[in-house]
């Protein structure tokens, strides 16, 4: 399987991208207090002394958030290890405590990976637990932070549980970066730990981008892109940044390590102010929270409860359908739509795999296909394969099955699609044989190739004269019967 080569980068350059993905966990409450974790509440209604950092308040970690984080870690093949929380100190009004409680040198999850549909494996360095910050609105200066007159802060989001998933700087194309983020989203939805909505900020992506000459192994100066609101926007932002850096190198200059803000409307990024260095955050272990030490039994229980993940579902379906006629993309589409289970069950009931996939791909691109049972769907595919229904008829029956959840045979009959009665069919076959003695003798006396070709001829004639209502298998049976007799 080859993926299209990036058409956007000038020849001789390659992309090096690492992604930091922040995911809000779908818990009922915040990470360290019982305030509701809810998007869209009235400003500052989900706040308490703990998430406001008032003196004397003490955090206690949310057990469900820790469980979700470990579940996500295992879904990404991470090692789940004993971990501690740490304080990341910085002075900014989005965090009233003046530090963010996060994990530093001992994260809960490390050394994982995510395999993309084309087999490319993205290394996951770590997936650690931390709290989200409050939300600032900059007033004046058109909402731009650099020109703001003042800022308004809503602390509803402060303390919402997050997992930050940090990839290795191993993404080599925009397509892989997009596939990685959408793969993460699929996993998050499959295991149910986040609603992963980029537009609502429950999944946020920062991209570290650098470029280097093709064949080089060096990691050059990177820029961190923020304010990316969709997968598509991420692709544009990375492309813009890579071209900007290549342009600098081509002019004998070098990019500066900095954070840049992506402006989706303008299609460009602008530099932010320089960030503090890791040392300046003065990380130290959080004295108010005790270590998290998952037992082997706890991790085993998480593995046991793990639902089938999209990559495993893709390979399960992949194994059942011929690789030559069904592409990687089609398999991925069916898994995305959640139709893999139906496909596998129908194939298990004897329906032709390729036909199953074709019908699902082209004729079942609907949100709700829940009324269709595997048995009914397999019957429909069999009716089509045997020639009882033409392709057009099968599609019409299928669309009625989507609406009513009915069985294909009665639906076909009610529409007058039923197969010809065998007696009528026998008459037609006999007439056809009488009209085409030469073809018939080739069918009866010819070699295998001739016989096959003539069977196609006779079946085609019958199908055309009956407008597709004849049962292909019954025609074949009649031909065999007549030639033997």
């Amino acid at each position, binding site marked *: 399987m080859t993926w299209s080569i990036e058409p956007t980068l000038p020849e001789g350059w390659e992309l090096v991208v690492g992604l930091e993905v922040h995911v809000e966990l779908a818990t009922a409450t915040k990470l360290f207090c019982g305030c509701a974790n809810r998007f869209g509440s009235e400003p500052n209604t989900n706040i308490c*002394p703990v998430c406001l950092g008032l003196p004397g308040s003490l955090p206690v970690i*949310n057990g469900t958030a820790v469980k979700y984080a470990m579940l996500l870690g295992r879904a990404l093949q991470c090692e789940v290890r004993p971990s501690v929380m740490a304080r990341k100190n*910085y002075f900014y009004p989005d965090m009233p405590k003046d530090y963010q409680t996060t994990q530093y040198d001992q994260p809960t999850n490390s050394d994982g990976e995510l395999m993309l549909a084309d087999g490319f494996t993205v290394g996951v360095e770590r997936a650690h637990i931390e709290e989200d910050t409050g939300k600032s609105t900059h007033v004046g200066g058109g909402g731009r932070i650099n020109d703001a007159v*003042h800022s*308004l*802060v*809503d602390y509803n989001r402060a303390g919402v549980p997050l997992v930050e998933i940090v990839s290795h700087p191993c993404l080599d194309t925009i397509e892989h970066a997009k596939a990685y983020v959408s793969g993460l989203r699929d996993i998050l939805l499959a295991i149910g730990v986040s609603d992963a909505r980029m537009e609502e900020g429950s999944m946020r992506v920062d991209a570290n981008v650098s470029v280097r000459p093709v064949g080089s192994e060096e990691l050059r100066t990177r820029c961190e892109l923020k304010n990316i609101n969709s997968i598509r926007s991420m692709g544009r932002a990375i492309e813009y940044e890579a071209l900007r850096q290549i342009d600098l190198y081509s002019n004998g200059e070098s990019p500066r390590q900095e954070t840049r803000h992506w402006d989706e409307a303008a299609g460009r990024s602008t530099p932010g*102010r320089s960030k503090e260095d890791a040392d300046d955050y003065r990380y130290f272990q959080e004295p108010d929270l005790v270590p998290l*030490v998952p037992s082997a039994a706890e991790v085993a229980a998480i593995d046991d409860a793990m639902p089938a993940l999209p990559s495993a579902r893709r390979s399960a379906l992949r194994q059942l359908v011929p690789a030559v006629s069904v592409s990687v993309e089609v398999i991925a589409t069916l898994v995305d739509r959640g139709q893999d289970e139906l496909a596998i069950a129908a194939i298990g009931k004897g329906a032709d795999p390729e036909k199953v996939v074709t019908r699902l791909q082209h004729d079942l691109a609907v949100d709700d296909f829940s009324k269709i049972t595997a048995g009914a769907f397999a019957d429909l595919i069999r009716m089509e394969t045997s020639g009882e229904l033409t392709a057009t008829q099968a599609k019409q029956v299928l669309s009625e099955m989507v609406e009513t959840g009915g069985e294909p045979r009665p639906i076909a009959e009610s529409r007058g699609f039923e197969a010809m009665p065998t007696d009528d069919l026998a008459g037609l076959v006999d007439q056809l044989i009488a009209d085409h003695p030469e073809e018939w003798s080739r069918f009866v006396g010819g070699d295998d190739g001739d016989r096959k070709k003539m069977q196609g001829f006779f079946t085609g004639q019958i199908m055309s004269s009956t407008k597709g209502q004849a049962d292909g298998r019954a025609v074949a049976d009649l031909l065999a019967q007549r030639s033997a007799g």
Partner: protein
Amino acid sequence: MSDRITRDEVIHVARLARLELAPDEVDAFTEQLARVLEHAADVESLEVDDVAPTSHPLPLANVYRADEVTPSIDRDEVLAQAPFAEDHMFRVPPVLGEEP
């Protein structure tokens, strides 16, 4: 004066805390912080090779809270104690520097 900390380091640390120090304050804090560090250096002279690092005095792990919503506090009461509030939010000066 001790060489435990330089004036530049004091200025840097003050900037991280968004503190504006007058030159004579920088001198005063450089001297005071140096004395603090000097005192901490006494601890470094102890033999601690056999002592495991301790961040928590109690041998506890896995202390969890149930994921159940408890009442939040009244926002008007909180905002009444803020220096400035607007539209039910805390109003703060525009802050220099990036969000982390």
